[in-house]
């Protein structure tokens, strides 16, 4: 399986990332792009991470997705540093033969990124910075995937 995991300051291009996942047996690519959402006077986010653990934890999350669904490729790109409103933050792209696996794995990976990968966000409003609180709805989203 193709596996592209990048933690980077630079922006990414979704079309290029889909093209990099597209091989002969691929019939379906699901992607998720997260962006800095405006509103409530938000001007920018600053993303901090735990170098080393981030890559390892994302690797474990991808291993788990690969064990659950027949996948042909996974790309995860997470940006760090300061990002203004409208900028892309994160990309998850999943290639598979069929759409069910691509959709499920893409949503699973996002839910686990949100709750397991060591990133922290600071919000800027009126020049003041404030750490984003963890959302319990993210825990609930991730708990859907727990095997019983």
């Amino acid at each position: 399986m193709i596996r592209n995991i990048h933690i980077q300051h630079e922006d990414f291009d979704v079309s290029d990332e889909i093209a990099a996942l597209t091989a002969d047996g691929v019939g379906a690519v699901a992607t998720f792009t997260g962006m800095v959402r405006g509103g409530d006077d938000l001007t920018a986010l600053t993303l901090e991470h735990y170098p080393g653990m981030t890559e390892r934890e994302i690797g474990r999350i991808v291993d788990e997705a690969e064990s659950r669904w027949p996948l042909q490729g996974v790309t995860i790109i997470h940006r760090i540093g300061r990002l203004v409103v409208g900028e892309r933050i994160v990309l998850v792209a999943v290639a598979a033969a069929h759409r069910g696996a691509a959709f499920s794995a893409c949503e699973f990976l996002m839910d686990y990124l949100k709750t397991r990968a060591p990133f922290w966000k600071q919000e800027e409003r009126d020049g003041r910075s404030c750490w984003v609180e963890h959302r319990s709805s993210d825990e609930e989203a991730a708990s859907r995937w727990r095997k019983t």
Partner: protein
Amino acid sequence: MNILYFAWVRQKVGRSEEVIEHTPGLRTVGDLAALLLKRGGGYGEVFSDLSRLRVAVNQVHAGLDTVLASGDEVAFFPPVTGG
């Protein structure tokens, strides 16, 4: 052991990392947290409410009962908010 701090934990304790020698009294993460709480100040603020803290040992999510060893990398941080 190498101790790392991230996000507001880092800001409150005033540093991003430090070295603490592993001793028999520091059997678990919980023992280490109790030691750091005793320092007071920013450490006191951070370690007085462990429900708001998360920990990783050697870059794997861990808990208060995780057993420590010499040479471990122990990181304290808030619940994650990426994505």
